């Protein structure tokens, strides 16, 4: 099978890339997605808008309609197993699609948060909870504990309550040596204060108003209240850390270790009955398909990501990246990145009379989406993006140097 562009991943980044290049360049586009329906994680998200909830599925359905209207062919329930220059994309049925351009938009996955009992049925990651609650409208359990305290954990806690579930609390994990997840109450409060100062997410902003002055000050001077703190209605159980999850053929309880008002273990435990547990260990960019790209490790964007330029090209000709595979951010940023990658490919195909202006405009839209992001996952994302830009400039400089050396030798 031959086409102009293969897009891998049908979330907001992949859909926007596909639509943009199909519309601008009249390109043939095949989009491959392993979900039963395209949309990626956005399909299961509820976003806080200025005027209430924005339903991710509605946004996604709009993006899918736009893609189909410009002739994008969407292959759902299909996997890409590998691809090689430039470019043969191998699908799960043994079929190969050949195209001069590939966009990798494989998104993010969750870091595991292992602890004793975490493999019991009924213990699930945030993504599973999002799908169950918001796509399938099913309560994973009647009494639920959320473990891990980060923006995603607060969001799912709110969605559990919204769906009518009983939330026994949002807990810290006891933490294991080397685990990157925060397990110190004050470190968590400080991270929330940083995040909310950085991006005005309504959920965190309301928390920040509480935290910035009286409560954080109280916590520092008088210690953590016995019942923990409430942020936007979410009970943060800052005096209890989850040490293990218990059950037989499924989860039945969590055992928490009590902390004193300063956040130090008191050496006593308590057993809390639950029938579902949601673990939030944070997100990382999925590099299942990019192992042979030049990857750079930038913790500020969430880990290892492909080296890429301001227009989302990689050093390999015709290979582009977009969305969370380049760093952990929200759906609006991913969508703007997809449009940028699509614009860059259309420009390389000669679709525009003013390609530079089009690219600058698409890049500006990514920056705008970032600046107005309702939810920031990583506090230093801007620094991380700057670091990636520097790495690209260094790569280009080395490339030019290499080319000059090459000429000299001839």
């Amino acid at each position, binding site marked *: 099978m031959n086409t102009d562009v293969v897009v891998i991943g049908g979330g907001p980044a992949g859909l926007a890339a596909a639509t943009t290049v199909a519309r601008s360049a009249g390109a043939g586009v095949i989009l491959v997605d392993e979900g039963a*329906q395209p949309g990626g994680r956005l399909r299961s998200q509820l976003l806080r808008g200025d005027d209430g909830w924005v339903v991710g599925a509605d946004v996604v359905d709009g993006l899918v309609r736009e893609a189909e209207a410009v002739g994008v062919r969407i292959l759902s329930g299909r996997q890409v197993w590998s691809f090689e220059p430039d470019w043969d994309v191998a699908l799960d049925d043994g079929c190969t699609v050949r195209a001069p351009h590939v966009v990798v938009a494989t998104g993010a996955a969750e870091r595991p948060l292992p602890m004793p009992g975490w493999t019991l*049925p009924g213990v*699930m990651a945030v993504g599973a909870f999002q799908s169950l609650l918001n796509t399938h409208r*099913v309560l994973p359990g009647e009494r639920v504990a959320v473990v891990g305290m980060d923006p995603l954990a607060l969001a799912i806690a709110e969605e559990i309550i919204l769906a009518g579930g009983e939330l026994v609390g949002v807990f810290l994990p006891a933490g294991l040596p080397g685990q990157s997840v925060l397990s110190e109450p004050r470190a968590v409060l400080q991270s929330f204060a940083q995040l909310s100062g950085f991006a005005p997410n309504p959920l965190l902003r309301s928390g920040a108003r509480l935290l910035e002055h009286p409560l954080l000050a109280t916590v520092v001077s008088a210690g953590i209240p016995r019942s923990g703190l409430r942020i936007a209605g979410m009970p943060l159980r800052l005096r209890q850390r989850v040490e293990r999850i218990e059950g037989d053929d499924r989860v039945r309880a969590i055992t928490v270790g009590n902390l004193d008002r300063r956040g130090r273990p008191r050496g006593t435990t308590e057993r809390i009955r639950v029938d579902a547990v949601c673990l939030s260990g944070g997100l990382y960019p999925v590099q299942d398909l990019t192992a042979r790209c030049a990857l750079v490790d930038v913790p500020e964007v969430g880990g290892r990501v492909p080296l890429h330029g301001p227009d989302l090209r990689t050093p390999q000709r015709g290979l582009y990246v977009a969305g969370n595979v380049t760093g952990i951010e929200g759906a609006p940023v991913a969508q703007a990145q997809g449009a940028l990658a699509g614009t860059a490919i259309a420009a390389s195909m000669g679709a525009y009379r003013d390609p530079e202006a089009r690219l600058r405009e698409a890049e500006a839209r990514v920056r705008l989406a970032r600046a107005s992001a309702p939810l920031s996952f990583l506090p230093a994302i801007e620094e991380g993006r700057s670091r990636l830009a520097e790495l690209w400039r260094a790569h280009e400089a080395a490339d030019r140097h290499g080319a000059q050396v090459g000429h000299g030798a001839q």
Partner: protein
Amino acid sequence: MKRIEDHGVLGPQPGEPIRVWINGQAAQARSTDSVAVALGVNGHHVLRFSRTGQPRGVYCGIGHCFECRVTVDSEPGVRACLRRVEHDMHIDTESAAR
């Protein structure tokens, strides 16, 4: 797992009632369910066992962890979280073999 009959933001249940077969028994699902949901609402939480015999169910819910593998219409190793149900689909979990 329990269905949310009327979600505060999203409204009533999507899809239509359909019949599936779970470990040989007729069961009710909805046309928009994933296989994982059809199993969960019918009380099947243990989908398979680890090599050391520990029970396993849905974990990541997005196709990454492969913990929720079941047999669908004789096709083994199907990720229950990704596959959508169909009328008269036959779903078999490993626990049935025990």
